[in-house]
């Protein structure tokens, strides 16, 4: 138990360190902007006084490390600063959008995790049969497709041809849960298809890897039922790679969500970030970037810790 606690603390420390360095990079990146941020916003014709006043407003007259610690301190307290484009507090802009993005990602995860586990195990069990070939070809294509291709195929079919689901998502705060589910159905399905393909292929590979070990052959020779071998012998031992696969792919959702949100004009964080990049609204980009990066690092960390806990060999090696 002590060993596990030790490992978890060590990983958490490493994760925190990564997070600090990543936040520094995001901050320094914006610092390294060619020219000056004031020039980008006020234009070339700005007088010296307006520039000086603007710099003071943004605290640009303070040294970089002071501004960094102020910025980080603010973020930890939920204060992300002001948007350059519309002078609104970023915290307010983000709050509702973040909850929408999480809603989409969580719904997609609820669909694709169980489905891809089942499909992965089935195609490992019946490998090299027509069933496996079909699943494998479909998932290979789904991996190769850009997210927006999958999205537009679904729109063309379910929204334009049959007019079942809306192609643009409109959400507001007093919608019921089922109304929301109906609205996010298409973006959710798109995300699930893309992520499921990855998850399923990796699950299949992990289980086949375990199935080729000698103790499985031994169990087969003893005459144990195939299903029991999978459930009792193979599955617990492939748990470590499978957990890893699942959590890593959830991290992949973070990236996929940006494109899917843009396709469906979904009022989420990804859409906000892309808009802000086009407007070069740097504080908003910074804030969204740090939220996405934190989630990503946190998920990777979870994958690492869980796979170490579920595999004692990893736990006791360094």
């Amino acid at each position, binding site marked *: 138990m002590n060993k596990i606690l030790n490992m978890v603390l060590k990983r958490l420390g490493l994760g925190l360190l*990564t997070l600090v360095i990543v936040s520094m990079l995001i901050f320094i990146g914006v610092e390294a902007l*060619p020219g000056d941020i004031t020039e980008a916003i006020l234009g070339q014709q700005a007088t010296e006084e307006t520039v000086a006043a603007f710099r003071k407003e943004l605290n640009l007259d303070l040294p970089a490390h002071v501004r960094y610690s102020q910025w980080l301190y603010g973020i930890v307290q939920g204060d992300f600063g002001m948007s350059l484009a519309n002078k609104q507090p970023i915290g307010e802009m983000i709050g509702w959008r973040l909850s929408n993005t999480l809603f989409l990602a969580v719904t997609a995860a609820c669909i694709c995790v169980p489905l891809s586990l089942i499909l992965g195990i089935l195609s490992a069990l019946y490998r090299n049969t027509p069933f496996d070939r079909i699943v494998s070809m479909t998932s290979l294509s789904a991996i190769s497709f850009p997210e927006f291709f999958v999205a537009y195929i679904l729109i063309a079919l379910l929204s334009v041809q049959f007019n079942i689901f809306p192609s643009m998502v409109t959400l507001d705060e007093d919608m019921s849960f089922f109304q929301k589910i109906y609205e996010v159905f298409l973006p959710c399905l798109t995300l699930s298809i893309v992520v499921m393909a990855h998850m399923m292929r990796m699950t299949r590979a992990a289980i086949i890897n375990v199935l080729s070990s000698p103790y499985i052959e031994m169990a087969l020779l003893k005459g144990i039922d195939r299903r029991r071998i999978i459930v009792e012998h193979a599955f617990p031992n492939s748990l470590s790679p499978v957990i890893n696969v699942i959590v890593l792919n959830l991290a992949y959702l973070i990236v996929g969500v940006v494109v899917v949100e843009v*396709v469906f004009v979904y009022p989420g964080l990804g859409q906000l970030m892309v808009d*802000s990049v086009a407007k*070069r609204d740097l504080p908003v980009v910074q804030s969204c970037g740090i939220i996405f*990066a934190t989630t990503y690092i946190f998920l990777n960390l979870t994958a690492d810790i869980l796979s170490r806990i579920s595999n004692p060999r990893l736990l006791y090696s360094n």
Partner: protein
Amino acid sequence: MIKLFKRSPLSARIGMLVIAVNLFVCIAAPLIAPYGETEVIGEVWESVSAPNSILGTDHLGRDLFTRMVYGARNTVLLAIGITALAFFLGIFFAFLAAVLGGWVNQLLSRSVDILMAFPTLIFALVVLSVLGTSVPSLVFVLMIPAATRVYRLARALAMNINVLDYVEVARIRGEGIFWVISREILPNTLSPLAAEFGLRFCFVFLFISSLSFLGLGLQPPTADWGGMVRENAGAITYGIMIPLIPAAAIAQLTVGINLVVDWFLHESAGRVPEEI
């Protein structure tokens, strides 16, 4: 080589054909395209049956087929260039880290760890918001994530070979670092690296397309498949399937490459026991 081709399954042959056709279109783009890249030939979103064009027209009345052909050239060639650059950088630093070890290895590997802690698209968005969307910043943004992945693989491969006897012999013989890298390590890592090149190309290619789709990649009026999906996205609500055409074009190339890479990986994994 010919023997290898004869053994290839149907799926790999289809993949090779797809890649060949795409490369041909890239190279011969001006010869194939019936109109100029930005030439307006008709009304907005004219249907496929329009007399003077094959695939109809886009949102500005330009010939879609012409745009597709030039799009192939712009997107695919840029992706090949970036992948090659990422490979050169990734492999060079990976081999250096593996051969030199010590603090060089630590410094390079930890820097790569940090870069890989960023989700790729988020990294790209942050950098593009700072540098603006120009081709050089696009190259930078696409190359760095690809190079880190290549570095990881190449370093692991090189580490395994670096401890083998014949590398030791070469060192004792007094060969320099670059001789060891280019004559001992590189030839023995070529086969997995070749497969990785295919996969990395897909990654870069999909990434450019996604960025262009988000309006942050190649800027109009340059034809680009991802950008064309974005420009024509509005058509789909009128039941016009034009945005699906460039999107399908992106998909066919990545599927083709994946088919070849799949077979190649299978082949190089399966060949080892036969030779032993």
